[in-house]
């Protein structure tokens, strides 16, 4: 798959974060980026559209990023979906919870355009998607 064809869903309740992450991804060559502000919208979006990667914050409404990750991992059709947590949450016990729940990578804010590009390419390459 070409980088520009990778479909990415960004989930963050903070508008400025959504705008910045989308902007960084687009500048990095990922043209197919969609964003939502709640886990509910994310779940709905995942039912109607196929994505290759979800990049989610931890603390979002009405549940949280960990709940979204667990939802995806037990979903019969989406359980292999690549998931990167992009968050300011760096408490050790919570990072471990995300890893146990099957997160593919975990990025602590602030994120730079170079870092985000490198992480996404690394994870997608590892999964054989690009």
């Amino acid at each position, binding site marked *: 798959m070409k980088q520009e064809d990778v479909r990415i869903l960004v989930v963050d309740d903070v508008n*400025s974060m959504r705008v*910045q992450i989308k902007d960084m991804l687009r500048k990095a060559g990922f043209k197919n980026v969609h964003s939502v502000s709640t886990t509910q919208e994310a779940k709905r979006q995942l039912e109607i559209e196929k994505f290759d990667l979800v990049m989610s*914050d931890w603390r979002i409404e009405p549940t949280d990023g960990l709940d979204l990750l667990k939802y995806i991992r037990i979903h019969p059709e989406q359980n292999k979906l690549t998931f990167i947590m992009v968050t*300011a949450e760096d*408490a050790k016990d919570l*990072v471990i919870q995300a890893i146990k729940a099957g997160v593919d990578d975990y990025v602590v*804010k*602030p994120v730079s355009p170079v870092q985000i590009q490198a992480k996404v390419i690394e994870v997608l390459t590892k999964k054989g998607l690009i």
Partner: protein
Amino acid sequence: MAGSIEEFVDELGGFAETAERTLSAIEKDQDGAKGMFSVFSDRMFAIKGTARQLGLPHVARIAELAEEIAVKGTHAGTRAVVRKCTGCLWDALTTIKVLLVNRDKETTEEQEILVNRMKKTLDALGGGRERVSTDDIAALLKNR
């Protein structure tokens, strides 16, 4: 950067307003509204993450300490602890609001005093949660 910095900072100001309403509610009902510390903590978390991303480290540092103190407030066993938390969080919130308006100014001595006071308060309440670095996370992911 898409979007203007003013627009993003306005959003942070909105989070601070929510936090202020929450803190007022806790003060009015120190027993019943204690659970609302989690709302305050969530807003501070949002401010911390966004401020880090926007390159406002002074705001992020105070928000992080406020987040941790609010987490402690959620588990406060006595009114004295609730009052200790709210007193410190009011100062933090006021400073964050001032810093958002005057974000280009240098760190002042008052801010340093506040940060030290917050650290002492947090230590007195048992300390913050254990944090991990990017390298720690990489190691945890590798050894899963």
